[in-house]
């Protein structure tokens, strides 16, 4: 599959770009933040995104989706990243929605996916525990009960967990703390007894929650996929979500870089645009190279998923490690090159720095993915 966008993909990109510029510029995120919006994103906007087909972009048409691929999803994610649009794509579509689409049975898919595609239902993936991404490190337990299971544990950093209608909870049904085997996924209604949710307010102004589950009763029908073999679903879900996140990050640092370039061209000091100073020129040129390499790996990773290639896991880790490092570099350089104005809340560039740091940490930072890459390659 070529790394050059097809005409259809270019059209999708242009539509998406125009949509986010008009409907969801960075100012929209600031507004949500300053209003301390209880949801953290605009449900109206999400409805419109659903109408554009984005919420179902990767889901089969039989469930109300568009039946497109990750190449197309990536185009949309990149544009969403450009203006830092707060939206439930990650939580509802790529994490929990994908868990149902990839692991769920026909009943679950028919129940959940159409309402996800229509933008009505919101989901969250209750997976992480503690302060870092360690996919198999799960202490939340699901114990057999007469009718089904009882789930107890504490989940952190659950994207949109505060507003989701349903959760996909990753719990341990057997095995030791870090075992790959022994994980099981459950589809749980947020109103179930024993669930308490605390919204956490984070620097990127998006919505996250800590979720505590205390003896939450679920029936056997809540199981997504096979008991004890949840990691088979989790691995694929995480790879796809991570690829999508990398595309979002690519959009973010591309935009931050372009804004910085404009600033370098227009800000005058010592009688000349600061972009004429060689030290800044070289740093900008180096950033350009990093962005180009990042774009290549993101595009190829998305296509690897669409082609169902064997190298998806190592490509995903390469993309996430590189995009984490690129966003880190560019987020910091962008602020530094903006000078004093760059550290003010009024200037939007700081929003990119903040999003950079959170997305770096989300689904594993660069060091995590380098370790994973090394393991995948057998060293």
């Amino acid at each position, binding site marked *: 599959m070529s790394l050059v966008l097809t005409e259809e993909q270019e059209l999708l990109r242009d539509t998406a770009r125009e949509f986010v510029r008009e409907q969801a510029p960075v100012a929209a995120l600031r507004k949500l933040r300053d209003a301390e919006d209880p949801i953290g994103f605009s449900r109206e906007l999400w409805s419109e995104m659903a109408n554009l087909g984005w919420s179902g972009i990767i889901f089969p048409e039989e469930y109300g989706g568009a039946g497109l691929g990750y190449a197309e999803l990536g185009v949309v994610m990149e544009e969403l990243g450009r203006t830092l649009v707060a939206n439930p794509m990650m939580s509802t579509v790529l994490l929990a929605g994908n868990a149902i689409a990839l692991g769920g049975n026909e009943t679950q898919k028919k129940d959940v996916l159409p309402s996800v595609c229509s933008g009505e239902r919101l989901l969250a993936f209750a997976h992480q525990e503690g*302060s870092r991404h360690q996919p198999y490190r799960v202490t939340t337990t699901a114990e057999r009960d007469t009718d089904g299971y009882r789930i107890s544990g504490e989940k952190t950093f659950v994207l949109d967990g505060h507003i989701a209608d349903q959760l996909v909870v990753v719990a341990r049904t057997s095995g030791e703390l870090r075992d790959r085997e022994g994980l099981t996924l459950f589809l749980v209604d947020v109103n179930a007894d024993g669930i308490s949710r605390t919204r956490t307010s984070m620097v990127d102004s998006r919505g996250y929650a800590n979720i505590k589950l205390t003896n939450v009763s679920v029936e056997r029908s809540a199981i997504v996929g096979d008991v004890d073999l949840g990691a088979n679903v989790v691995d694929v879900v995480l790879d796809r979500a991570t690829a999508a996140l990398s595309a979002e990050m690519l959009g973010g640092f591309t935009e931050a870089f372009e804004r910085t370039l404009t600033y370098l061209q227009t800000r005058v000091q010592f009688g000349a645009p600061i972009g004429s100073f060689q030290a800044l020129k070289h740093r900008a040129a180096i950033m350009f190279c990093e962005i180009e390499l990042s774009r290549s790996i993101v595009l190829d990773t998305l296509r690897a998923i669409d082609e169902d290639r064997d190298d998806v896991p190592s490509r995903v880790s390469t993309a996430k490690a590189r995009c984490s490092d690129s966003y880190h570099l560019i987020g910091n350089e962008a602020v530094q090159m903006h000078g004093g104005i*760059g550290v003010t809340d009024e200037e939007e560039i700081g929003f990119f720095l903040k999003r950079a740091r959170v997305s770096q940490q989300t689904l594993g930072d660069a060091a995590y993915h380098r370790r994973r890459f090394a393991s995948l390659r057998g060293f």
Partner: protein
Amino acid sequence: MSDLEAFREEARAWLESNGPTSMHLPIPESEVVWGGRQEAFSNPDSRVWLERVSEQGWTVPTWPKEYGGAGLSKAEERVLTEEWRRARCRPALMSFGISMLGPVLLEYASEEQKREHLPKIARGEIRWCQGYSEPDFGSDLAGLQTKAVLVDDEYVVNGQKIWTSYADKSDWIFCLVRTDPAASKHDGISFLLFDMASPGVSVAPIQLISGSSPFSQTFFEDVRVPKANLVGTLNGGWTIAKRLLQHERAMISQMGLGLAGSSNQSIDALAKEYVGTENGQIEDSILRDRIAQHMMDNECYGTSLRRSMEEAKAGQGPGAASSMFKFYGTELNKQRYELLVSVLGTQGLGWEGEGFSEHELKTTREWLRSKGNSIEGGTSEIQLNIIAKRVLGLPD
């Protein structure tokens, strides 16, 4: 017993009998005393402590006694600092008057100006702010456009400053103004002092990405300043301005040392707690390596500060060393916070409210605040320019 040892005993005894326990370290941010008319002394003991210390002349120990100091030698001052640390006493007063303005007044001001301003700085009566940068003249400071025109023995000041630290809490400002628009840019600048309560001065705080607002925009509209408030010679202010920047850089350099900071725990201890250990080692070996490197760099930086002081004493040392310390110290401080955020993981990215400890939230805010370190007080790029030119002698 040497004189120095005698002084040590004297200082130790004084600190023991005069330093109330409530004035021991650590010092919560809310209890730091900056002085000035607005100072509220949220802990009443701190007012007494400031009075006692300034009575001794020890807020500015090396300044002459007639200006509120104690006339100590450098060696005595070091002894005093050591004893202060040993007694775990808090600093009685934080002040730009002490760290930045005072030294240049001592060097450049008239006797009358010294007698007027220095004692009030020493006693924390007047809090000063710095009127340097302007919106279009940040790194290119010498391009500043705020004008002062002499009318009837008063300078009439018009213009706008930016990045004025704590302008809203300060009583007086030391301000760079253009007094000769026709001269080349470095030759038409003067160094002026005036009261922030003067008619025509207004202040608008600037919110930073960290959420705090330590800086302001400051506007001057026909502000009338007595002629006597000019420091040094008319149009000769750039020399004073540069010297003051050296003092500012020296002050900022201290940050790199990763002083107590927000946390009582060192990065390695935090990493053990947040990341976990294996055979007593931080479990994430990459993080362990980065922490070791940072700690080493930090210690080398501290050793370099010490060497620089010893060399200054011995009359050696590079004159532009303050630029090196400013550059390296602020980069180190930024690195330190990046590392802290890495250690805390998603817990290091909270903004407010539930789900995060006070210390975690503070770390996040300080991480964001640290991004300004390499911009304020002269950007890292400006410091590198200075080093290349003044220390290395590379051509323009």
